[in-house]
Structures are given as C-alpha cells and as structure tokens.
C-alpha cells in the first residue's frame, strides 16, 4: 500500500485549497436556504406617502383615496424644508401635491402637469405610483366620456382601481417537511461544489504521481502496473467517499433533518455524482495538464455543467434546446432526481432509478476511457519489434 500511502499524503497537502471551497459552500448554502425559506412570506411593498390636497374636490379626494390604498399615508408636513428633509432621510418616500383647479383641468381632459410629485430614490414602487396616477387619469377620462358626470366618473374610477389583483402564494404539494425542502436545496447545489473540491484536489495529486520522472522511477521498480493503478484508484475512491460523507453529514446537521424515505434516494444520487466527479478527475489527470489548466477545466466543467443542467437555474426555466444538450451530462439526471423528490415533477421510482443508473453509466464509461488512456500512455512497449 506504499503508493496509496504516498498518494494520500499528497492529497493531504492539497487539502487547504479545498477547505476554501467547502467553507464558502456552507456559507452560501446557508444563505440560499434562508432566502428560499422566506420566499413564501411575500408582502406588497408599502410607500410612505404624503398627499397634500389643495383642490379638495370629489376628484382630488378620489385620487388621494386611490394613492393611499396599500401605502402608509403620512399627514402633510409643516413646510417645504421639512418635506425635503423627510424625503432625504427617507421618512417619506413619495409626496404628491394636488393643486387647486385639479378637478377642472381633469374634467377638461388635460393630462400633463396635473400634479406635483417629489421623490428621491427611484424604485419599482415609485414607478408603480406614477403608473397608478396615470391609470386614475385615463380611467377617469374614460368614465367622463361615458357618463359626462365628474362626480360619477371619480366614484367609478375609485371602484375600478380598487379591484386589486389577488396575489396568492401557492404551496407545493407537501411531500416532505419544510426542513427537508431546505436540505433538498442544499443537495441541488452540491454538484458544483463536488466538482470543484474533487477536481481541484484529486487532479493535482494525480498529476504529481504521473509526472514523467516519477512515473519513470516507479516503472523501473518491481511494482506491477495493475497494483499501482489499483492503489491509485482505491485511494481516489477513499478520498471521494470522505468528501461525499462530509457533505451528507453537513447537509443533515445544518438543516436538522435525518435521512428517511425518499431522502435516501437523494443521498444515493449524490454518491453516484461524487463518483462521477472522481472519475472525471482521473480522466483529466491522464492528460497531465498543469495546475492552471486543471483550475480552468474545473471551472469549465463545474460552471458549464451546473448552468446547463439546472443546478443554478431551475430546469423548468431552461429552454428545450439547452435541456436537450444537458441530457448528455450527468448533472441533468442528478437534478432530475432532486426535482422528483422535491415534487417539482411527478415522482416515479423507475424514472429515478433510471436517472441514477445513467449517472452510473457515465462513471463506468469514464473509468474505461481513463484505463484506455493510461494504458496508451504508460504501458511498457513490447520487448522487440522484430526478432
């Protein structure tokens, strides 16, 4: 086990670079899960609004009523300076002054310069406020055309614009507890970190062992190539297993969930993907690139695969063309299992098994390719070409 021992020591020396990824992932993962957890507590943004009605007509009161709905109405301030200060210190977000003669100008069909508005910070809510004023003016105008009565038009406009769209947060079908949902989010992002940690550590260690001079010295020794390869494969598998275990335990600990039922499927899914990451590292290392190239390839594989396959962006939001390409990558099938367990798509045990099986297929194919490349690179050529 001499090769294994040395290989694990080399891996140990590369571990600090992996720690950065792991810590970052846990931090970002925790933030993401907390963000997703608060998504259901949706509420409409309220503006702190000052409406000064200098016209005091049915129309101006109707407009003040519309603007006040859903916003926090603050009584008019004593002076212009006070209002400027309030806007600056954001105790007031939006100020509307309805000047005298507003109703007359509105009834005459004027639309420009009807009101004086002030705000400092541009936001979605302030833009919405402008739209609401425009809507009142056009709705009022439409009713004036129909009824010819300013009083009726103001009342109708208030009624029409008060009919708010009812926003309801639809809850997903409860297949697991909410903390399990958080765990599934953790697992959804896992391919990226697995690829980064495994490729960034395993590849450089493998490259060290494959350096021409080191390999030459090893080939000169009495060790059989099969024994050497087996020791490298076993140590790599041990490392991949350890990394996977850290994440599985951390996932459970951080989210306070024990693995039960379908969650075991997610665990198995992550194990197969970890193995894929391991054999991908073996395959890349066979070409013995430099550490810079390894870093580049890690980012290319990890980011490329995660974006294409729906790790970062939900598969439901990806185009059919992208998903068509993604099907040829194992992360697609990994995410598919997560989505099934999460209830995003109907759960089907056979389909889940197939998705994990396809990932296992990628593992087998890459192992075979790695062995082929290794043989082509390192096998000692036959003794004589012609006797």
């Amino acid at each position: 086990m001499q090769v294994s021992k040395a290989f694990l020591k080399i891996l140990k020396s590369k571990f600090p670079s992996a720690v950065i990824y792991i810590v970052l992932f846990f931090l970002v993962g925790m933030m993401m899960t907390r963000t997703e957890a608060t998504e259901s507590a949706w509420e409409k943004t309220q503006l702190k609004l000052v409406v000064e009605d200098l016209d005091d007509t049915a129309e101006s009161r109707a407009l003040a009523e519309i603007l006040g709905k859903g916003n926090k109405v603050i009584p008019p301030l004593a002076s212009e300076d006070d209002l400027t200060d309030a806007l600056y210190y954001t105790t007031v977000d939006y100020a509307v002054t309805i000047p005298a003669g507003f109703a007359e100008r509105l009834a005459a069909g004027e639309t420009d310069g009807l009101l004086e508005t002030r705000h400092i910070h541009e936001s979605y809510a302030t833009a919405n406020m402008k739209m609401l004023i425009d809507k009142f003016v056009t709705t009022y105008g439409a009713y004036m055309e129909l009824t010819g009565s300013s009083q009726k038009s103001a009342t109708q406009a208030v009624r029409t614009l008060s009919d708010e769209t009812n926003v309801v947060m639809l809850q997903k079908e409860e297949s697991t507890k909410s903390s399990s949902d958080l765990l599934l989010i953790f697992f959804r992002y896992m391919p990226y970190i697995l690829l980064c940690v495994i490729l960034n550590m395993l590849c450089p260690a493998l490259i060290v062992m494959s350096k021409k001079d080191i390999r030459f010295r090893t080939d000169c020794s009495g060790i059989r190539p099969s024994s050497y390869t087996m020791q490298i494969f076993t140590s790599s598998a041990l490392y991949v297993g350890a990394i996977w275990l850290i994440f599985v335990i951390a996932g459970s600990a951080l989210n306070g969930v024990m693995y039960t039922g379908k969650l075991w499927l997610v665990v198995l899914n992550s194990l197969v993907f970890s193995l894929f990451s391991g054999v991908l590292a073996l395959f890349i290392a066979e070409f013995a690139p430099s550490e810079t190239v390894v870093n580049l390839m890690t980012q290319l594989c990890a980011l490329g695969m995660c974006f294409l396959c729906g790790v970062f962006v939900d598969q439901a939001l990806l185009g059919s063309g992208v998903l068509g390409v993604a099907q040829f990558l194992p992360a697609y099938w990994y995410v598919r299992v997560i989505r099934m367990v999460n209830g995003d798509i109907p759960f089907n045990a056979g389909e889940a098994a197939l998705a994990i099986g396809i990932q296992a297929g990628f593992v087998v194919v890459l192992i075979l390719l790695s062995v082929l490349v290794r043989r082509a690179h390192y096998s000692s050529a036959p003794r004589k070409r012609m006797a």
Partner: protein
Amino acid sequence: MKPTVVKIDNLVKRYGELVALDHFSLEIKEGEIFGLLGPNGSGKTTTINCLLSLLSYDKGDIEVFGKEMTPVSYDTKSQIGVIMQNVAVIDELTVRENIDYFCGLYVLDKAKRKECVDEAIKFVGLEEFENFRPKKLSGGLLRRLNIACGIAHKPKLIILDEPTVAVDPQSRNRILEGIQELNRNGATVIYTSHYMEEVEQICTRIAIMDKGRKVAEGTKDELKSMIRNTESITIEILELPEDVRAKIASQPHVYETEYDGNKLTVRCSGGRHNLIRILGVLQEAELGFGRVYSELPTLNDVFLEITGKALRDSKE
C-alpha cells in the same frame, strides 16, 4: 571468473529513419563500475532505457543477472536501482517520506524498510534535512536525495545516468565517492556520462559510444593505448616561424603540430624527454615563449582520435 550481470547483444533501436543504437553489444561483470561515455545523443540513455525494458527495441537480446529482461521481469527489476539525470522526487513529501516511498516500491517489510531508509539518509548525508521538503534543498542536496531514492533498497545493480549534471564540485566529489563506496559494498554500477574526467576517475571499464555505436571498450589504460598520442605538449608562443615549426615537427616521436597564432600544440607518440627537445629547438631559434604544459592523453584524446571530433564539441 566473475559472473556476468548485464549482457547486451546486437541491440538495434530505430526512431523512424534515425538509428539510435546500431548493433550495440556489451557485457558487464559483477563488481565493475562500467562507464558509458559519449557525447549527447550518442545513445547512452537509449541503451539504459532498453536495458530497463522501458523502451522497445527493434533487434537484439538483453540479459540481466543471467535472465532475459522483459517489461514483466519484476524480480530482476527489484534488484536494480536507477538514478536518472532529472531529479525524480515528490515535492509534496519530505526527504524521509520520499526515500521511504521509493524504497517501499521494493521493500515491503516496514522494519527492514526503516533500516534501509535510515542507512540511505546517512549514506548521502541528509540527516539534518530529513524533514525538509525537496523545494527547500539546494541543487546539490537535491541530487543526493535523488541518489538516496535510487539506492535505499540496496540494489545489486545500480544504473546512474548522468547524475552529476549541474552539480557543484563539492557535491560532485561526494557523489563520485559515494558511487565508489556502493561498489565496494558489492554493487555493480553502470555509469553514463559525457564528463570524461568523472568516468576516468571512477570507472573500472569504459565503453565509448558515438552515433549509437560502441567505438571502443576497455580499461582507461587500454583505451589510451589504442591511440598514437602519449603526450600533448602545449606552449604559449606569440610568433612561430614556419622553419622552426618544421624543425619541431621533425623531432623524434612528434607526429602532429598545431599552431593557432599564440599557442603551439605538439602531439607525441612514445619516447622520453620530448618536452626538453622541443624547448631546445625554441631556445636555439631564440624565440621567447610563455607557459608550457605537458599532458598525458585523456579519454577525450581517445574519442578525438577514433571519431575525429572532441567529446565536448559534440552536439546532440
């Protein structure tokens, strides 16, 4: 008669049109320090690679310890120690861990291995540096570590391929002394180099290679006796009239003179008092001269006479 350790018979190795080894044969006996001397590209490393079955070859036979050498001759390989020109150590491991790793490829018993590693560290004088990483070592210490990794398992046959390239004189002497000590301890050594002084200093028998062929073989004295040159006399002289040069050339045992404008080289074959006679001619002609050297023939002279070019001038 001592048994044969290495036998190479009619080895031919081609790289496309280039013939790297051209019917090369060799026999090395137990206890020898056998020198393979030749310029870069003469086929020394190719010979070693074929000998270790790391390289295929087109024709010929190789036997090591009386057994045919093949890529799967693991028992034979376990009795060979290899120290190559490039330092082959793992930067992530310490000095001790490196020696332990490479020794462990041969010696599986942990206690025995520890003993071997301790001895190897002591042998190359790296006791103070055993917990250092290779990157912290100087070039000379790194070479010593390279050697320790190759000999820790106490091989019966040690192959050293230019182990002193880019090494300071102090480390070089230590390495050469170490090789002689390994030989005294019973190891047969194959030493390849293009430094003739080193080969001359430590090798008991030498084969000179050029363009994949063995051009001469024997002890250093045998090799030197193969050539006409027995003494080279060099005199610094600023002006040398043609008649004086002709008179020097006509002296007994002088067979060649060479003058490059400020240095006269006279090559003699046999005879005694050649220097006195030549200086006598110069004094008679009342010519002033500077420093005078008289050198016995070197392996470079042997190579020069056999191949028509100097060892050091040869380029790969």
